[in-house]
C-alpha cells in the first residue's frame, strides 16, 4: 500500500515536472520564434524542398520512368553537343546580362540620387516600371518590336538606310535580343538596391574625401564602392541565380532558336521534358544549374561573411 502511494506521488511529480518543462519551453523565445516560423518552414518544405528532391528522383529514372538508372542521364547529357551549347549560352546569357544590369543600375542610381528630393520619387517610380510589369507581358511587346517580318525597329532603322536586321533569326542578333530584354527587365532592381545603398553612405565620408582633395572618380572608388560592396555582392548573386533560371524571356522571344543558339537551361529542359516527353532528362538539365549556382553562392556569401566579420 505504501509502495502504491509512493508510486502515485512520483508519477504526479513527474507529470508536474513535464508540465513545467513544457511551460518553460513554450516561454523560451526561441521556441516561440520557431512556432511562428513553422508555417513558413512547412510552406518551403512543401513547395521547395519536396519538389527539389522529387526532381532529383526524376533525374535518376529512365525515359519511361520505370527504371532507376543512377547518374546515366547526366552521363548521357555530357556526351551531347547541344548540352554543351546550352551550358555555354546560359553562362554567356547570365554573366553578360548581370554585368550590364549592375552597370546600368549603378549609373542610373547615381543619376537618380543626384535629382533633388522633390522630383526623385516620380523618377524612381517611372524607372521601376520595366521591373514591375510581368516579364511575359513586356516580352510580348518586345517580340512585336523584334518581329521577323514586321519589326518596328527595322521600320525605324529603314529611315536611316540601315537594315533590315534579323533580330531573332540570326544567332548573334538573337542572343543580343534576349540579353537586351533581360537587362531592360532586371536593371531597375539593381537601380533601386544601389539607390538604397547610396542613401546609406554617410555624407561625412564624402566631405572628408573632398577635404583630402579626392576627385569624382576617387570618391566613387574609395568611398562609394567600398561602402556598397556587400549590397553589390548580394544583388549580383541574387540576379545571377534568377537570370540563370530565366525562362519566359527566351521562351517568348526565340523559343531557343535559331538552331538552338539562344537555349538556356530552363528553356531546353522544357523542350526536352515537356515537349519531348522525356521528363527525367529534362529534370537532369534543370538540375545542372544547381552546382554552378552553388559554387557562385559559396564564393560570394563567403566574401560577404568575411567582410561582415572584419567589420
Amino acid at each position, binding site marked *: 500500500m505504501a509502495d502504491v502511494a509512493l508510486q502515485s506521488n512520483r508519477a504526479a511529480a513527474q507529470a508536474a515536472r513535464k508540465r513545467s518543462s513544457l511551460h518553460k519551453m513554450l516561454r523560451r523565445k526561441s521556441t516561440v520564434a520557431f512556432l511562428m516560423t513553422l508555417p513558413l518552414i512547412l510552406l518551403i518544405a512543401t513547395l521547395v524542398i519536396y519538389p527539389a528532391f522529387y526532381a532529383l528522383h526524376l533525374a535518376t529514372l*529512365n525515359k519511361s520512368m520505370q527504371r532507376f538508372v543512377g547518374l546515366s542521364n547526366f552521363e*548521357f547529357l555530357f*556526351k551531347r*553537343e547541344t548540352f554543351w551549347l546550352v551550358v555555354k549560352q546560359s553562362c554567356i546569357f547570365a554573366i553578360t546580362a548581370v554585368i550590364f544590369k549592375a552597370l546600368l543600375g549603378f549609373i542610373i542610381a547615381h543619376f537618380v540620387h543626384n535629382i533633388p528630393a522633390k522630383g526623385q520619387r516620380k523618377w524612381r517610380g517611372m524607372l521601376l516600371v520595366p521591373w514591375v510589369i510581368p516579364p511575359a507581358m513586356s516580352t510580348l511587346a518586345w517580340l512585336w518590336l523584334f518581329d*521577323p*517580318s514586321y519589326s518596328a525597329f527595322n521600320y525605324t532603322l529603314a529611315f536611316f538606310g540601315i537594315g533590315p536586321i534579323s533580330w531573332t533569326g540570326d544567332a548573334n542578333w538573337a542572343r543580343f535580343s534576349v540579353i537586351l530584354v533581360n537587362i531592360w527587365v532586371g536593371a531597375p532592381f539593381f537601380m533601386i538596391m544601389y539607390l538604397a545603398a547610396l542613401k546609406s553612405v554617410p555624407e561625412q565620408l564624402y566631405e572628408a574625401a573632398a577635404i583630402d582633395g579626392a576627385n569624382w572618380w576617387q570618391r566613387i572608388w574609395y568611398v562609394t564602392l567600398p561602402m556598397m560592396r556587400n549590397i553589390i555582392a548580394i544583388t549580383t548573386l541574387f540576379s545571377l541565380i534568377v537570370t540563370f533560371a530565366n525562362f519566359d524571356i527566351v521562351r517568348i522571344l526565340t*523559343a531557343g532558336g535559331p*538552331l538552338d543558339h539562344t537555349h538556356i537551361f530552363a528553356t531546353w529542359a522544357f*523542350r526536352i521534358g515537356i515537349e*519531348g516527353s522525356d521528363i527525367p532528362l529534362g529534370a537532369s538539365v534543370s538540375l545542372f544549374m544547381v552546382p554552378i549556382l552553388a559554387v557562385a553562392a559559396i564564393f560570394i556569401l563567403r566574401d560577404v561573411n568575411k567582410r561582415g566579420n572584419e567589420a
Partner: protein
Amino acid sequence: MSRKKLSRRQFIAATALSSAALVTAPYVRGAHAAGKLSIGFWDHWVPGANKASTDIVNAWAEKEKVEVQIDYIPSQGNKNLLTIAAEAQAKSGHDILAMPTWWPHAQSELLEPMNDVMEGLIKQNGEPNGTVKYLGQLKGKWLAVPASVGSQIKGPCSRIDLMKQHAGIDVQALYPAGAPPKADSWNLDTFLKAAEACQKGGVPFGIGLGETSDNVDTAGAIFQSFGAALVDEKGNVTVKTDPVRQALEFYKKLISFLPPDVGAWDDASNNKWLVSGRGAMIMNPPSAWAVAKRDAPQVAEQCWSHGFPMGPKGRYAPYLSYFWGTWSFSKNKEAAKSVLKVLSQPDAIEKMCVASGGYDLPCYEKLTTLKVWQEEGPPKGTLYHYPNPHNHQTLSIAAAPAPPKIAQQIYTQATLTKMCLRYHKGEAMEKVLAWAEGECEGFMRS
C-alpha cells in the same frame, strides 16, 4: 446499460425482410445515377467551335444520367502538354483528355486500350488514315480514339491571283472544286519555279524554317516526297543516304526564294504572311484563310487550299491528328468510352466540323466529303480539296516512319528544319549529316 440480444431467428427474419424490400422496391434513378465524368478537351482556335462538342456531350450526359465536367485546355503556351504531363505524374485527372499527335505513344503505358471502341467506329466510319494508325496504335492496341476536333492537314493555301500573275499557275484548274485534281504537273520542280517567280514578283512563299510545328510539318512532307527518312521503321539511323541529300539540296534552293527571316518563324508567322497579303502561298490548315475572311476579305476571296507538289517518291501532305485518351487510372472508363463513341458518330463529327468552319478533319475514309468543305467560301469550293477527298496525296507526319517515340524527338527538336538551315548557311553537307546522325543516335534512348 441494458443491451438487447438479437436471436438467430430474429436476425434471419430481418435480413429476409430487408432483402425482399430492396428487391421489390421501384428503382428510382437519380439525376447523376451513372456517376461523374471529367473531360479535358482541346480549346479550339475557332470562336464558338467548343459549343458543338459541349452540346453533344451534354445531350449524352442527360440521356445517360452522368454528371459531366468539361475543361477546355488551350495549346497556347503548351498548357495541354503540361496538363498531360502533370496528370501522368499524379496518376489522377480527367477521365478523357485530348492528346495531340505524339502523346498517345508517349503515355502508352498509362492509357486504357480502346480497341472495343475503335472496332465499331471503323466498321461504321471506314478505315482511319495511315498517320492516325501510326500515331494511335501500338502493337495492335488502340491507345486512344482519333478526335476530329483539332485534326488537320497542313497543305498549301495559295493566292489564286498571285500564283496566276507571277508563276502562271492556275491553282483552281489544278484542283477544281467538286472534281478530282488534275495536278500531274504539280510537282517539286514546278513548285520551285513558282517559288522563284513569286519571290521575284515580291510575293515570296511563306514557308517557315523555325522549330515549331508548321515549319517542321512542311519539311517533313518534302523530305518524304524524296523518300528521305532520318530513322527507318525499325529504328535504324538512315541519315547518310541519297534521298536525304536530295531533300537538303532541294531545300537549299527553296530557302533562297523564301523571306530572309524564315529561320525565326513560328506558327503564327505564316498566317500573318498570308493575311497581310505579302505572300503567294503558305502551308497551313484553313485557319489563316478564316482569319483573312474576318480581317482581310480581299485576301480571303483569293485563297485556295489544295494538295502538295509531287516529289520523286510520291505526293505527301502533313496530317496532324488529335486523340481522345482515357487514363488507365480513370474512375469512369465505361462512361468515357460511351461518350467517345457518341463523339465519333458521323452526325456528331459533321456538327463539330461545321462549327469549326471546316478546320477539323476526321480521319475516317467515309468522312472526307462532308458538305461543309464543298460549300465554304469565299471563293466557293476553297476548302473542297482540303480534306484530301480523292486520296490524291499520302497523309503523313514529319519523322515518320521512325518508331513514334524516336520520331517525337526528331519532330520536337526540329532536326529536319535545323539540317536545312545549317546546309543553307554554308555548312558542308557531310558535316550536316554527321550532326543529324549524332542527334538521332541520342534520340534512341529509352
